[in-house]
Structure formats: structure tokens, C-alpha cells
């Protein structure tokens, strides 16, 4: 008996989860994973042409790609700024400025660009508000936020959704997604935090993507992807095990709750889900780190939550909460490069090769005698 499969893939009924939802349990037990180059082709690296007066902070990320193809860089740590670069990496302008006045921000840590209108929505995690700018980056209005959010999403119908992985939401409930209106009033909240979550485990990460009018949501604490409709009903759920993902376990030593060093040690014992991304027309990817390391792995799924590829080791990237930006088949992230001994930042582009109608590259376990 021998294995033909690249790795094995078991499907069972999920041990827990939403009732009446389509539940799956994937255990990808073996194999060293797929190669990045098998699924992505490297595009050019665009070095940011920074003028002398522009200094980028230690944790920049790509906030959005405008409809004109410009790169909008979010810089929320140190220098607080939102910079716009053209397709060749040449600095063009900045959006808003640091401060507390109209159209200003103190902690612009995530944003959303509405591809239909070109409008830019910037979430300020310090002043707890969303700033709205038009396509030419002129300030329009602000929306008060009831709580710190980690991700903002505006649907094509103009509905506002936010994701938070904190222990308690704005209404004290342990939900991860909130819908709110333009006055900042909460209209709906859905998806509970995992039962295994404890405050000492709190971490940034996870998120949501919106594909074909469905939300795909994951928290940093549990490798379970939930597919929900806009009213929050869970329509599918898949729990995954991969060779490089280590599940979060409850700590035995109570010191973890009060001691920073113990907490660091505890967090290094399990893998954190960092990002969920939309790849191509209707695929999604989940990125997590190998426990205690800075190695990031990507698993790719169809919108039906079938696995396409798993354990793809990502090349170097600046790991920030919204490090990976996707547009169509392309993935973008920021990398540090060295040009003539001077550290600079470049936008790296990688294109997804898998096409929707092509056969599934993943082979399930086949046993023959």
C-alpha cells in the first residue's frame, strides 16, 4: 500500500459549530506543503521613491489600491500618515494628516476603498472614527465608532461592517462582526468568539472577506472559517488542521494572566491566524504563523470552503495586521530592500495562477493495494 497523494485530506463532521450550517472538518495531516512558486508568479518589485521629507514608520502596510492603480500606504506607528504612490512607486500625495481636527487622524490603522465610488474610508483607532474621503482624497465626512475596530468593510450596497478580535465588543457582547450605520449606531452583531478564547490570549489578527455576497470570517484563535450571509447566519463552517498550525491550548499557570514574560511564552506555543484574504475571483486564503516563529503559511480555499493548497510558505514580508493586500489575482505586500546600503521599502507583487475552472491541484488521499 502506498500513498499517491501529496498530502492526506480527511473529512469528518465538525465537532462543534453553528447548527444547520454545512460543517466540515479537514485534517491535512502530512506532507511538507505546497510551494509558493507553484501557485504564484512573481511580478516586479516597485521600490518606493521617497522624497527626502517623507519618512516611513516601522510598520507600514498597503491600505488599498485606487481605481487609478495608485498604492495607498498606511503608516500608523511612529509617523502617522497615509501616502499615495503611483504605479511606479513615485510619491504623489498624502491623504489627511496627523491631528485631531476635521479629516485628521491619530492612528490610521486600517482602511477600505470602495471600488464602485472610489471613496476611501480610513478607520482611526485612537479617535474612534471613520474618515471618508472622495476619489481625489478630499475629506468628506466622519462616522463615529463605538469601539476600536481592526477591519472595516463596506459592501456594494453601502453597508458598513467591522471586525474586532477583542474580548468584548461595543455592546459588551463577545461577537466579532458588527454592522453599523452612518451615525455609528450598531444595527447587528454576529459570530461569537471561540469558546476557547481567554483574555490572556487576546491578539490582533483574523478578519473577514466578502465574496459573492457572503462573509468569510476567522478569528486569530481558532482555525475555523465561518461563512455567513449579510444578516449573520452561518451557512458553512470548516475547521482545519495542517502540519504547521498548532492549536491554542489553555494555559496551566495562572501567571500568564499577569506576567508579560509568561504571556509571551504562552503565545509562542500556538499559531496565530494573521490574515484572511480574497484571492482571484472567488478564492480565499488564510495565513498563520508556525508557533513561536515568524514563518507565515498560506492555505487556499474555494468559496465552497474546499481546500486548493495548503502550507505554502510565504516569502519575507513586513508583518503588520493588514500586511497583505489583494486585488483580483494579484497579491501585494511591502518588503524591505537594500539599495546601495540604504534600507528602502518596495511593493512586491505576486499573481495567483490558479483559475477557477481549472482542475483542483490538490489530490486527496488515494490508497491502492
Amino acid at each position, binding site marked *: 500500500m502506498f500513498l499517491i497523494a501529496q498530502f492526506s485530506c480527511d473529512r469528518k463532521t465538525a465537532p462543534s459549530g453553528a447548527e444547520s450550517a454545512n460543517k466540515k472538518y479537514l485534517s491535512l495531516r502530512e506532507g511538507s506543503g505546497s510551494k509558493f512558486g507553484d501557485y504564484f508568479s512573481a511580478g516586479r518589485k516597485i521600490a518606493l521613491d521617497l522624497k527626502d521629507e517623507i*519618512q*516611513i*514608520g*516601522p*510598520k507600514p502596510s498597503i491600505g488599498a489600491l485606487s481605481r487609478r492603480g495608485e498604492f495607498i500606504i498606511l503608516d*500608523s*506607528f*511612529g*509617523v*502617522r500618515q497615509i501616502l499615495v504612490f503611483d504605479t511606479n512607486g513615485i510619491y504623489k500625495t498624502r491623504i489627511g494628516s496627523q491631528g485631531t481636527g476635521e479629516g485628521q487622524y*491619530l*492612528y490610521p*490603522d486600517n482602511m477600505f476603498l470602495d471600488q464602485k465610488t472610489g471613496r476611501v474610508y480610513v478607520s482611526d*483607532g*485612537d479617535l474612534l472614527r471613520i474618515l471618508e474621503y472622495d476619489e481625489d482624497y478630499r475629506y468628506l465626512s466622519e462616522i463615529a465608532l463605538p469601539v476600536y475596530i481592526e477591519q472595516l468593510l463596506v459592501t456594494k450596497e453601502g453597508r458598513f461592517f467591522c471586525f474586532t478580535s477583542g474580548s468584548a465588543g461595543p455592546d459588551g457582547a463577545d461577537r466579532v462582526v458588527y454592522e453599523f450605520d452612518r451615525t455609528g449606531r450598531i444595527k447587528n452583531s454576529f459570530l461569537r468568539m471561540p469558546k476557547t478564547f481567554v483574555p490572556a490570549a487576546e491578539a490582533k489578527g483574523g478578519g473577514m472577506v466578502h465574496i459573492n455576497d457572503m462573509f468569510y470570517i476567522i478569528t486569530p484563535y481558532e482555525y475555523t472559517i465561518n461563512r455567513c450571509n449579510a444578516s449573520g447566519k452561518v451557512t458553512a463552517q470548516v475547521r482545519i488542521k495542517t502540519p504547521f498550525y498548532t492549536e491554542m491550548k489553555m494555559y496551566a499557570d495562572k501567571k500568564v494572566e*499577569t*506576567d*508579560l*514574560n*509568561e*504571556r*509571551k511564552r504562552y503565545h509562542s506555543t500556538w499559531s496565530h491566524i494573521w490574515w484572511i484574504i480574497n484571492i482571484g475571483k472567488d478564492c480565499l486564503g488564510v495565513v498563520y504563523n508556525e508557533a513561536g516563529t515568524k514563518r507565515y503559511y498560506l492555505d487556499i480555499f474555494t468559496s465552497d470552503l474546499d481546500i486548493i493548497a495548503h502550507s505554502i510558505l510565504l516569502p519575507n514580508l513586513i508583518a503588520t495586521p493588514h500586511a497583505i493586500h489583494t486585488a483580483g489575482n494579484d497579491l501585494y505586500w511591502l518588503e524591505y530592500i537594500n539599495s546601495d546600503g540604504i534600507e528602502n521599502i518596495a511593493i512586491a507583487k505576486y499573481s495567483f495562477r490558479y483559475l477557477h475552472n481549472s482542475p483542483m491541484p490538490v489530490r486527496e488521499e488515494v490508497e491502492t493495494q
Partner: protein
Amino acid sequence: MSRPAAFIGIFASVLLLLNVLLLFRISGLQTQNKIWKTKGVLNLAEQRALVEHGLEGEYLGDEIELLRREGFRLLDDHVSKLTLLYSFTITCDRCLNMEMDIYQTNASMLDETHVTPLMVFGNIDQLLFDRIVRSFGIKEFSIRDKEEVLIKKFSKLTTPIILLINSNGRILAAHISDYFDRAKSQRFYEKVFNIASRT
């Protein structure tokens, strides 16, 4: 009235009286319980204030000596001055941003009152440290605490801590950063100003 009826009447009256007394007692206990509950459980701000108060007067000379042994010549310049010692653990970007903003608005006051800032970063690799100090423009008075001397000392505190210490390494005032209370940080600098003006 017959004797049994009288007996039942008296018994019922006593029972009623006992019930009323019991109700009074329960109501009294409930009130007491409420008082004890509010007395016993401190809110986060009160807990923070208690820790800050406990730090005041504490001797930090051993930690400063350890930091000096790590090769921080910077500390040698501080022996005759009041030092504002910042202990940053990179666990909350928002907290660091906030404390840096407030430091920058008070930098000239510290300069005028001869208080020297010293920023110590723990839980951080060299590359990120370099980028952070360059980004905030604090390279001249920032050090990376490789041995995590201050983290070991204040391991129970995950948010930034700011300590005003005298030349003997004694803590004169302490501030634990509260992300939700920007005004508290500003009030601490007013306290620093008052102490430094008198010294």
C-alpha cells in the same frame, strides 16, 4: 374567644412579627453586601493608582546598574539629574503612539526643568528598535534593553510605564499608561513639572 383560638391568634401575631424582623434583617444585609462589594473590588483606574503609589519611593538603583552593565553609557550622564525613565514593551502600538505624542508636547518643559528623558525598549529586536527610534526621532536618548531588565522588574505591567527618578535611583513619581485616559498622561507631566520646579 375560646382558648385555642386565642392561642392561634397570638401564635400568628408572633409569626408575623418574626417575619417582619427577618425582612428587615435581610434588607439590612443586602445593603451591607452592596457596600462591601463596592469597597472590596477596585476598578482598573483605582488598581493602577494603587500600583503607582506603591512604586513611589522604591529604589531602582539595581536595575539602573544592570542597564549600565549592558553598556548603556547614556545612563552615566544622568547621575546628577532628574530622569524621566520610560519603559516600553512593544505590546500596544496605540499606547506607544499616545505616550510619544504627549512626550513631544512636553519635551520643551522637560528641557526647561532639566529633566532628562531616557527611553528603554524591551521585548523588541534590534531592527525594529532602530526603525522605531528613527521614526519617532528619539535615537539620542533611547536604549534597547536586551536583557529585559525592566520587563523583569515590571513584568506584571504590560502597558508603558513612566518613572521620574532622582540621581540616587529613587522613584519620585510613577505613571502607568492608560490608553483610554489620555488626560491622565498629561496630568503626570504636570506632576513632573511641579516636582522638578521644586528640586
